[in-house]
């Protein structure tokens, strides 16, 4: 998911995360099949803001890099 360019939308395939961040992201509605739009990164390139089910959520690349996504459009 860290590779999705700004303005593109991808579909979540799998979360390779464990512990509290996995639970927190799933509570935010980030499950398999969820469309995620990349909105752009902060001043230093990290973290990156994503539009997830109508809410803007910022994730560090170290976390978003472990979320597998399918084709982006």
């Amino acid at each position, binding site marked *: 998911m860290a590779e999705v360019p700004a303005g593109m939308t991808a579909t979540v395939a799998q979360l390779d995360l464990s512990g509290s*961040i996995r639970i*927190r992201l799933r509570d*935010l*509605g980030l499950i398999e099949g969820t469309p995620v739009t990349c*909105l752009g990164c*902060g001043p230093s390139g990290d973290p990156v803001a994503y539009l997830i089910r109508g809410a803007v959520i*910022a994730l*560090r690349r170290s976390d978003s890099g472990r979320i597998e996504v399918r084709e982006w459009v």
Partner: protein
Amino acid sequence: MGLTSCAGAAGARDSTASFLRTENADHVVALMGNPNVGKSTVFNALTGMAQHTGNWPGKTVAGASGTAEHGGTRFLLVDLPGTYSLVARSPEEEVARGFLLSGRADCAILVADATCLERNLNLALQVTEIMPRAVLCLNLMDEAQKKGVQIDCDALEQALGIPVIPCTAARGEGLDALLDAAAAVASGRRPTTPPPIRFPAALSDDQLSEERKQDLRTASYVLHAEEIANGVIRSPANAARDRKIDRILTSRRYGIPAMLLLLALVFFLTISGANLPSAWLSRVLFACTEPIRAALCWLHAPVWLQSMLIDGVWRVLATVVSVMLPPMAIFFPLFTLLEDVGYLPRVAFNLDHAFCKAHACGKQALTLCMGFGCNAVGVTGCRIIDSPRERLIAILTNSMVPCNGRFPTIISLLTIFFIGVSRAALPTMLLSSLGLTAVIVLGVAMTLVASRLLSATVLKGLPSSFALELPPYRRPQVGKVIVRSILDRTLFVLGRAISVAAPAGLLIWLLANWYIGGSSVLLSCAQALDPIGRALGLDGMILLAFLLGFPANEIVMPIVLMGYLSTGTLVELTGLPALGALLTVNGWSAATALCFIVFSLFHWPCSTTCLTIWRETGSLRWTAAAVILPTGIGMTLCFLLHLLLG
């Protein structure tokens, strides 16, 4: 900001149950919802209480309760912490879940953000599963309308099986209907029929890991919420304006400059606005000295008592009030406005990379912001950081941003020694605010260095995962913000300052008027400390003032002046030129002023902050660390500065 009251908030997390007095209420109503949906605004509007609203998760860290009366029915409302779900195990969720399961609530009011309905439905489904007697408060309808959102409320009622009431809590719209519905549901007059959640059959498979089961359970709620949302949202939110603002305020090129500019602007407004009222207050309060003396004479008070009360207590109080009140009354509302608009989470977003490099959490930036007002409040606010290691780092470094008690002194010294008092007013104020911004940047930079140092030594560890919500920008409730921030924050901080300044004034008066061997105790102590003070580019009196200023940072400068004048009483500051002249006569140079500013930025936290740190960490060792860390940094920096500038 969780600023309501440090004392009230601390330790109250687990006592949601114990403070409830339910005997006078007809119905107990639990208020729930995601973070950032205006839950506290609904609570305040219903109960008339002044609880703070904030724009980041975990704001309501302690349960609050209040009463409301409507149509002859008395409600007891319990404001539960904002949560995204009830299945995880954060302390906030345990409080919320525990209260629902305890059976003490007759009804739950679910506050939802109409501009972001789908995510809110996720929690709604989880709540109605264990607490079917619920009402959905569809809040922020005004924002939803602006964004072109259209929701079919009847269809939503059908789908959730509970009453749905559209509201704009900030304007009080829809609240009567909300309480009507809550009363009807709580009394059983209005039956509710929440839909059963369809869990996949695989859940009963024993082969499945606990994590996988948890995934399936959560996914069931999320998919059900998605289905409902697709059915009832006629037109989704158009957030183009928010994206546009974010493209500037959080962009690579403009994000950091915009942040510094906003900070400098807030300081400029504070400095320029506080000048006149400060001078006026000082004149009025010091003019009261003679009438009070006359009144004491009339009461036949002995001369030493007159001197003690007037020269000791009253003058310290007058100085603290006139120096502190005007800047606070401007700074706090301005800062609350930034918070209300939704800008502060963007600060955390912009600074997260730096904090990540320091192996800390981006939300620490939010606790720093709270520390600008009062470090004790900042320390309490560290509860928003989930990882215990990162929370401790934030607590230990919080006093490294100047609180409101230190701003006025820093501004005065910057103006006298680096900008010059002879210039015209406007450029002076502009340069002062830029200088103050530079001081803040130094404080934040040292916070990062110290955080990295802690991560490499006593608090070893890698940065934990991090998900930060950037809530939609909202029109601030200007009137309410001003009233609330002045009533809650300003008066609270001022009250605290006064309650420590009065006894401190008494102590200083005693020290200055108690002579042993021809010299006052105050001067003898200063002489004893002089060698250490000199090594740090300061002097003994300054060091003694910092020590005696432990109860409150705002009395440090007054003590220094009193010591120099050796009058045994605090003097009135008749303008900056006079202050500058007095300091110069006593051997101050620009280097001394710089060392003073640095030491003011990095030294032990004040007594209230220490007490709060002790309460939050439950450990004397960590409290000691919070004293030693900034003091060590301050002493090292001052020592080096003195060597360099000698």
